[in-house]
């Protein structure tokens, strides 16, 4: 009887639900990349734009797959889309400056 109780307890412990939902890693990665993209959005826009694009993809996959970490995926999407605005302005203005200075781009 005692053995039975013990085996039930140990089974319960091993089946204890984990706090981390499967797939929330994508949402975490999306959020972290979004923050990196936001901070580096204009000073290092050549790093920021790829980070933002990857963050949008990861956030979209995480949201569409109904995986864990919905809030983090939304945060990743918002930060990466916001970070694209200054990065694109800097890129366009840089290109305009170069073309006005006579460079062929």
């Amino acid at each position, binding site marked *: 009887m005692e053995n039975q109780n013990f085996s039930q307890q140990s089974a319960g412990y091993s089946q204890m639900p984990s706090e981390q939902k499967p797939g929330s890693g994508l949402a975490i990665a999306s959020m972290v990349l979004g*923050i990196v993209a936001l901070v580096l*959005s204009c000073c290092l826009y050549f790093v920021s734009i790829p980070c933002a694009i990857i963050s949008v993809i990861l956030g979209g996959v995480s949201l569409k797959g109904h995986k864990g970490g919905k809030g983090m995926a939304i945060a990743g999407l918002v930060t990466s889309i916001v970070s694209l605005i200054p990065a694109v302005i800097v890129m366009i203005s*840089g290109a305009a400056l170069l073309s006005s200075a006579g460079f062929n781009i």
Partner: protein
Amino acid sequence: MRAYGDALFLKRCYFICLSGCIVIGIAALFFYFLDVSVPEHMKKCPLYDVTGLYCPGCGGTRAVVCMFHGKFLDSLKYHAVVLYGSIIFLLFMVTHTISIFFHGRYKGLQFRPVYFYIAIGIILIQWIYKNLFWIIEGVHLI
């Protein structure tokens, strides 16, 4: 508050951060002793140069320099997220080092999304605040 990640995930994060610290420390020593100068065009923010507006990362480098010189109020003024991030990072590293030394008897700082939400909030608020102050009042805060 909900915590994410198991002990293995946090341990991996800890060792990645530790290796990152070692690499950045070696790079900092290298730059300090070799006295490498930064090119002029990299000292200015391109967005500020073109539009006159601050970007979300403006003031970040100055905040890091002030923090390492012990001027914490100046660091907060330039970019608040640097000090906030450093405190969270330091707490994470110290608590997990203690946890490893005591064989997991004490739990280290857990991964909570709220820490990141606060960081995003600080970045966005200070970005809007600095630009509004400049547009409406005509005052450069940094």
